């Protein structure tokens, strides 16, 4: 510092970029330091010189040329409302994407589950029913007896000791 104000602070002071407190401090210093006042004046003149580099005008027809180009190369306008709003809503959070994806998977899974053929009495062939009746002891052993109500419609009248009686008493 050498008793002088930091020149970075002087430039920021000129640009009005200092806090009120720092601006007051610089101002106070400038009041009693001709050397810093001179540096500040140099910076101020340098800033004014920059104005000598005047603005240019865009070339003739620039505006209409660019707007035409943009209209020509612009992608199709997004649908406003409906899916357009949905997209914007989804873009706001990856969690929303995840939740929506999970929902779709669940709905698709449920739909598949309901539409897949179940192994019930309507879908068993006569041959399969005979097969079950023949090996009924195996089904009992393996604990699937609760499913054997599928055989209810079978016409065969069980006789005592017949394997199928197990079915009706189960």
């Amino acid at each position, binding site marked *: 510092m050498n008793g002088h104000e930091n020149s970075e602070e002087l430039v920021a002071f000129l640009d009005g970029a200092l806090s009120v407190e720092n601006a007051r401090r610089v101002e106070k210093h400038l009041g009693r330091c001709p050397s810093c006042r001179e540096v500040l004046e140099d910076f101020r003149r*340098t800033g004014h*010189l*920059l104005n000598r580099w005047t*603005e*240019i005008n*865009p070339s003739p027809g620039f505006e209409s040329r660019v*707007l035409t180009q943009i209209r020509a190369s*612009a992608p199709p306008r997004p649908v406003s409302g409906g899916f357009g709003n949905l997209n914007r809503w989804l873009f706001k959070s990856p969690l929303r994407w995840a939740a929506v994806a999970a929902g779709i998977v669940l709905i698709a899974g449920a739909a598949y589950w309901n539409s897949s053929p179940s192994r019930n009495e309507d879908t068993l062939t006569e041959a399969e029913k005979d097969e079950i009746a023949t090996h009924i002891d195996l089904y009992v052993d393996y604990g699937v007896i609760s499913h054997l109500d599928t055989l209810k419609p079978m016409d065969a009248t069980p006789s005592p000791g017949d394997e199928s009686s197990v079915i009706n008493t189960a």
Partner: protein
Amino acid sequence: MAGQDLYRDDPDVESMLAFQKGDDQAFETLFRKYSRPLVNFAYRLIGTRGRAEEIVQEVFLEVHRARSTYLPQAKFSTWIYRISTNRCLNELRRPERRLVAAADRDPGGDEGDGTAIEPVADGPDALQNLEVKRLQDAVAGAVLNLPVQQRTALILCRYHTMAYREAAEAMETTESAVKSLIHRATVTLRGRLKSYI
């Protein structure tokens, strides 16, 4: 959402949101407001008007494409200057660009655009015009030869009247970095333009 709502008072953000909802006129309003300042911004950063205009066209194409995804997270001016800054810096990073940089520049804007000050062959103002032209070229040359980060900060703050904080947002850096860049640029320019001060 609170952060986004902060910028909804900005009329340019409002225009961009209107454009998002399908108001094409709002886009043209933004284009008319910003195209000239942005051409000058790119021109002062790059040094050639033709390329500056191409960059501004690319910037507005990007704005147009951002229609469906735009979320106001800054002032519109900060956002569009950030896009422009990135485009210009990419241009300046191109290897072929670096090779021809010095020769490519046309400080003073003397490209027949109607604003350049042409020396008059005869007449009482000829000498004065020549002097003005010389000073303009000297200032342009001094600015164009600043390191690119200093130049960007200086142009944003001095020619586009941005506060350090806003320039920092446009440059994706800190306010104290901008303060330092502006200081170094000013000190360098003071040295280079000493004979005119």
